[in-house]
Structure formats: C-alpha cells, structure tokens
C-alpha cells in the first residue's frame, strides 16, 4: 500500500438494493443439522414455509458429508446410555454441559432409527442382519454405526433426497451475512448475498436456525470443507450472543501432508492407529514410547497430536514438517483390503500407505466451542436457535470420534421440533432498517476498493498465525503475539480489495469468509489466554498440568458492537456425573 491514498470505486446507484423474501422458518446451513432441522420442522408443521439457506450446494457442502468413521448410538442391550454419557464426559475432560451431553446420548438411538427407517439410510450389517457397530477410540463399548468408511455420503445423500419429499424452499449459493434484529431485540431475519448474481437479499422469518458448522479452516493445516469459516458463530457473536469453550479446537493427529496441495490436512482415518499403525519421527524413533508408553499410538487424539507437534517443533520432524505413520508391516494385501479409501488417498499424492510410511501432521479438525444453547437449541435471542457445531458445550474439551455427526443430527432434529412449535407464537416483526443497511454496506466494501491487499493473502496470513501461535500447544507469549497479529489482520481486512464482478466472485466471497474467521479467531485466542491449564484439546506449555476438577470453570465470551470482548468464568455443573465422586464399581 505504501501509504498511498486508497481510491474507492463509487458504489453504483442501487448497489445496496435488496430483494425481500418472507418465510416462516429460515435455516442457515445445509449439512446434517440444517437438513435434519428442515425435515423435522416441515413434517411437524406441513403448513409452515421452511427455507434452507446454503452458502454452497445444498446437502453437498460442509462436513457431515465428509464423515468417514460413523455415528455413536446405544443400540445393544449390553451397552447403556449411562456408559455413553460417561465416555462422552471423560473424553470431554468433564468440561461438557452435562445436560447437553445427556441429550446427545439419549436422543442418538432414536435418531439412528429415524435415519434408517424414515430417511432411508442403510448402515452396515453384521452377518445376522442387524446393524453393525464398530470400536472407536475412547469408548467403553463398540457403538459406532457406519456405512463403510463413507458414512457421511450415505447420510447426506439420503437427507438431500428427503428434501424432494418435503418440498422446503432452497436458497442454494446464498450466503447469510448478518442476523437482523427487530427494534425490540428479538430476531427479524437475516441479510444474505446471492453468490451467483451478487445481489443482496433480506430474508424475514419468524424463527431463524443457525447451523453453518465450525471454523477449523482458520489453521494452515486443516481438515474441513471450504465452507467452514465460522460464519454461524461469527454472526451470533456480532448479534450479541455469548459463546463458550472457544479455546477448544480439536486437532486430529493424522492429516495428510501434500505440500501446497489442497489435499494437505485431509484426514487419514483413526482406524489406522487402531489397527496397529506405528508413528515415527524423522530419526526413526517410535516417539509415542516417550509420551504414552502404555497405549502408544492408540492414545487419544489430543495426546497423539500433542506428541507429534512436540517432535516437529523440537526439530525431529521430516523436512516438510511432519512425522511418519507406517502400517505397511501388515502387508500390502491386508492394508489395501481394510483401508482402500485411505490407500487411494495416499497414492493420489505420490506415496503409498500399503507399501511404506506416509508423512502426516496434526490437522485442525473440529471446534468444540460455540454458542450457548439449551437442550431445545434456544439461545439468548428470542426466535433464534443454534444447532450442531455452531453450538458449544456438548463435547467439552475434546470430542469423541463418532459423536460429531450424532450431535449435528440430534440437535438438528431438536431445532426443527422447537422451530415448528414456536413459529406460530411469533409474528413476522419489522427488521431494523439501520442494521440491514449496516450489514449490506459492510459486505459491499471489498468490491468498492480499487487497491488493497488480496483476501487470499490475508487468509494465508491468518492460517499461519493461528497455526504457529494458537495451535496444538500454546503459551502466553505466543498467544499475546497472535492476538496482536490477528488485530493487525482485522485492520488490513478493512483495506481488502477484490475484482469488481458481482457474479460468483470467489475473491469477494473469500473476503466475507475471512471477516467471519477473524471474529472467531479473536474469540479462540482470547479464550485460550484465559484458560491457564492444559485440558483436552487446549494445551499450554506454560501450564502443562490439568487443574483440579473441584474448581472447574468454562470460559464464556461475548463481544460488543465495537468488537470489544468480555470474558467470564462460570462453574461447570456436575448435574449427572461428578468426576470427584469415588469411581463406581465396574465403571
């Protein structure tokens, strides 16, 4: 920029014009939570107008689609809801909202049945014809329902098929910009941008459901789909809602390293470690012997990720900054037979899982943190519901594999039921015109600047900054540095410039994604500074121990309209399982 005067393109006449759409229930997001919500809402109240607003292709964007492993649900008489709850809480290091965790495990069997008998999914069977459940890390019973290693495709394809039955309205390629309040502070609707035409819309609704998915793409190495830029949490924070556990970002230990390719960060599935894969540093040492001599590679995601990260940071990583996973000792045929998808994935990048070691790194995967909700997905704003990864509290400090798609579908159903019940009790209220104008004016800015940094360059800077300073292992100095870098990026975002085309302009969309990522990144860093201990996914090298659970608090963060953050600590209620109580027999 060199201090030059930035010349702005004049906003052409009518640039802020918008089309107004009126619906009863507006659902933002079309993954597992969004479509489950639409189906439940429409089936419960067929006369309601239901509209699904999706930044990408309906049912084919977001991360439910990418689920490999499966879905945790208690189906076997030998298993129990109490055991699933205890696994979920132990996995979450007891930071969970126990009421939400109980809701998850309690509803999951019902929702699995619904997926099979109503939605039309077909999950793998055992030889006696009953649903097969496999073992997953951190669970006391084999309870993971799956369809091969492409479970998400089966669930999302069948949910998408259901959309043809219920006939809900779809706004595909429409990005939600901001929640719009009425003058009394309740929800009036949401502003949006039609990505195809570049035109603005105002969607007025009695009920708005936020179900966009998390923000893990803000890291240099990350697993999720491209849409996952924290839009829902960012919109909710800007609307004045509070979020909890924002420091809790899960890193999966085995993300592919494929240089500059987008394939980098894609997950090699957890089952490899379960099946006996060994992990080595660049010196050929099986380093897990030093971190968890008992469970070795089969230790939980947080422990293995932290060990790998430490090896890489201390200079024992490979030249491209990774470690090695090796399962070739099982033999080519066995590996090809058991992990065909993973073998194909590695061959595509020029290595071969069946024949030798593959370079991997921890990869940002899932955000446990999110908006405060109750078990019916209600929030602090009347008429606004939140479901799925946008919500916080279900998983606490760490999510178990198989509880993610369970969360999105369970709470999607509940949001749909709540929306159907509440819609009649709320009228369409008038949107605050100033809020609408502010939202559209802000969104238009990158398009009006002739010069300025490219959003792609700033996104890269954010990803590196978060990876280095607020990643797998954190400390105060690094976090403070990261905090000031993210603030700098926020400043530079206000100078960003994109090509002037309004139709399907990826540069413009990137700038809008980045604005949301920066809001969420600020919340992650501030919360990470506040938690001075190591717990679950949040590791502090300056506070390497987990504090006593008798004084366990969760971090709640809100942000004022000028962006000022406020943080509170609230005590975790052990309403169902007390980690301090003496261990129960047989538990």
């Amino acid at each position, binding site marked *: 920029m060199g201090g030059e005067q930035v010349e702005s393109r004049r906003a052409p006449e009518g640039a802020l014009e918008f089309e107004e759409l009126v619906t009863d229930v507006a659902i933002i997001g079309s993954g597992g939570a969004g479509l489950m919500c639409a189906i439940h809402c429409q089936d419960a109240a067929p006369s309601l107008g239901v509209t699904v607003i999706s930044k*990408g*292709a309906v049912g*084919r*964007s*977001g991360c439910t*689609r*990418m689920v490999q492993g499966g879905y945790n649900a208690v189906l076997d008489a030998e298993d129990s809801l109490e055991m699933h709850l205890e696994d979920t809480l132990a996995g979450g290091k007891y930071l969970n909202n126990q009421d939400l965790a109980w809701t998850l495990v309690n509803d999951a069997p019902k929702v*699995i*049945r619904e997926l*099979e*008998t*109503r*939605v*039309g999914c*077909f999950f*793998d*069977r*055992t*030889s*006696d*014809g*009953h649903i097969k459940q496999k073992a997953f890390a951190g669970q006391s019973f084999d309870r993971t329902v799956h369809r*091969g290693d*492409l479970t*998400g*495709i*089966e669930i999302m*394809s*069948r949910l*998408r*098929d*259901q959309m*043809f039955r219920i006939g809900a309205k779809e706004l595909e390629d429409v990005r939600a910009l901001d929640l719009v309040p009425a003058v009394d502070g309740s929800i009036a609707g949401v502003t949006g941008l039609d990505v*195809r035409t570049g035109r603005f819309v105002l969607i007025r609704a009695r009920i708005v459901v936020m179900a966009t998915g998390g923000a893990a793409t803000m890291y240099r190495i990350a697993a999720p*789909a*491209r*849409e996952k830029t924290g839009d829902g949490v960012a919109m909710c924070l800007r609307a004045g809602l509070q979020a909890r556990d924002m420091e809790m970002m899960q890193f999966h230990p085995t993300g592919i390293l*494929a*240089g*500059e*390719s*987008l*394939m980098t960060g*894609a997950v090699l599935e957890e089952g490899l470690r379960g099946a006996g894969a060994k992990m080595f540093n660049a010196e050929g040492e099986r380093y897990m012997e030093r971190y968890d001599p008992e469970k070795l590679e089969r230790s939980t995601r947080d422990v293995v990720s932290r060990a790998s990260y430490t090896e890489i940071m201390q200079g024992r990583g490979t030249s491209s900054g990774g470690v090695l996973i090796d399962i070739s000792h099982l033999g080519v045929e066995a590996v090809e037979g058991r992990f065909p998808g993973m073998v194909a*994935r590695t061959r*595509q*990048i*020029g290595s071969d899982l069946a024949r030798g070691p593959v370079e991997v790194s921890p990869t940002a995967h899932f955000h446990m943190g999110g908006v405060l909700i109750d078990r019916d997905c209600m929030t602090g704003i009347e008429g606004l519901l939140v479901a799925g990864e946008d919500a916080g509290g279900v998983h606490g400090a760490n999510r178990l594999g198989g509880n993610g798609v369970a969360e999105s579908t369970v709470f999607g159903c509940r949001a749909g039921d709540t929306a159907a019940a509440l819609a009649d009790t709320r009228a369409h209220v008038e949107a605050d015109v100033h809020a609408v104008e502010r939202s559209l004016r802000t969104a238009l800015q990158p398009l009006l600047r002739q010069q300025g940094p*490219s*959003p*792609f360059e700033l996104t890269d800077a954010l990803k590196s900054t978060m990876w280095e300073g607020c990643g797998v292992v954190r400390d105060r100095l690094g976090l403070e540095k990261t905090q000031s870098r993210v603030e700098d990026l926020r400043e530079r975002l206000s100078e960003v410039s*994109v*090509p002037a*085309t309004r*139709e*399907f*302009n*990826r*540069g413009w969309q*990137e700038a809008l994604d980045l604005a949301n990522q920066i809001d969420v990144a600020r919340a992650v860093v501030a919360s990470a500074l506040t938690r001075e201990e190591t717990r679950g996914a949040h590791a502090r090298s300056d506070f390497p121990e987990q504090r006593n659970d008798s004084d366990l608090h969760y971090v709640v963060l809100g942000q004022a309209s000028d962006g000022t953050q406020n943080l509170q600590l609230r005590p975790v209620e052990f309403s169902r399982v007390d980690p301090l109580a003496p261990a129960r027999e047989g538990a």
Partner: protein
Amino acid sequence: MDASDTPRLRVRIRRSDPGAPSTFEVSRFEPMTVLDVLMAVHREQDASVAFRFSCRVAMCGTCTIRVNGRSVLACQSVVDAQTTELYLEPAAGLPVVRDLVVDMTPFWDEWARVKPYLVPAAEMLEPAVVDPESPERRAIDDSLDCIQCGACFSSCGIAGLDRHFIGPAALNRAMVLISDSRDEAAEERLAIVTGADGVDRCHNIFGCTNVCPKGLDPARAIRAMRTGRSWS
C-alpha cells in the same frame, strides 16, 4: 531453485465473458491436482475465475468439470509431470452459471422424477434385518455410493442431448430403491423407469460407467432394470 527454473503449466479456461482473460500460466508444485491449478490461478492471476468445490477429497461431488474434454472431479485429477497444458471447461449438458460453474437443476429434476427417497412401510419402526450377503444387498451395495457429481449425466450422449432421458445417475438411484426390500414404491418407480424417458432410451454407449469417479456402473443398473434382473 531460481524462479525462472520453476516449471510452469499453461492453463486455458473457457470463460463466460468472451473478453475475460482465458489463458494463464501457473507455477507447478508436487503433488498438484486440477483443483490446485484452479486455486493457483486465483491466487496468482485472476481471482474472478468462477469454479465450485467443497471437500477436496472426492466426497461432495461439486467440483465436476471437463479437463481436456473428459468429465472428472477436479480434486481427484492429478496433473502428472509430463503435462504442460490443460484445457478446462464446464461440465457438459448443463447451463453455465459462470465460467466453470454449472446449474445442476436439470440433473436434480431428473433425479426427483424417480422419487429418490425411501417410501417406508408405516409399521417399520426398527432397522430392518437384512443379510449383508443377500441378493438384495449384492445388487445394491456397489451402486450405493453415488455422490451426485453429474459426471455421468454430462457424459451421456442421450441425457446431454435432450431433456427426455432420466439419465444414468437417477436410474441408478431408482435401481437401488427398487431393489431395497424396505421400500414400498417399487412398482410406481418401475413404471417411471420403464416409461418413455426411461431405460429404453439408453444406447449402451457406456459414457456413464467410463467416467464415474467413484467406480460405479450405472450402465449395469440400467441393463438390470431393462431385463428385469434387478432384485425386487
């Protein structure tokens, strides 16, 4: 390595606006997929080139384009070391929204015609007991993992030519449901797929099976329904 030594790749892209730049040169890296090439064009050359993707690991099915004439998922197409030039076009047989982005409505219209959702018996409250080795599952399992990418639809000489063929993906979906013992609408669906726009319009060109990025065989599904050999 000196910048001038970095291998370059020449990329031609069919743009919607005939005046927009359409030939680009990007730096190569290893490994590199066609999707990586498009991202490089964005970063280094022109952020306004429109294309679609989501998952980048062949699960979402939204990055379907034609690379040197062939329908593929951009994320799965590795650019090998010998390649020096690529020609990228939008998927065929579908209206172009902009550049490489197409409107999938015709594909979904056909998909909807076969009643693509399960019609379960009201009394089915528990997951059905189904032998995984049964003829039913043998008919279905290899045809189940369709990601609705539309590569087959675009490559079908008939579906792409006119709008009066249900097309390979929707017919494959119909075969799966007709074979599924949990479904109660098999007869209705059979009538649709054996009707005027159904299986008899297939000319056995096998374009669908040849391009399916998931290795499915829609031509086999069509043949099975033609000869009444689908398991029902």
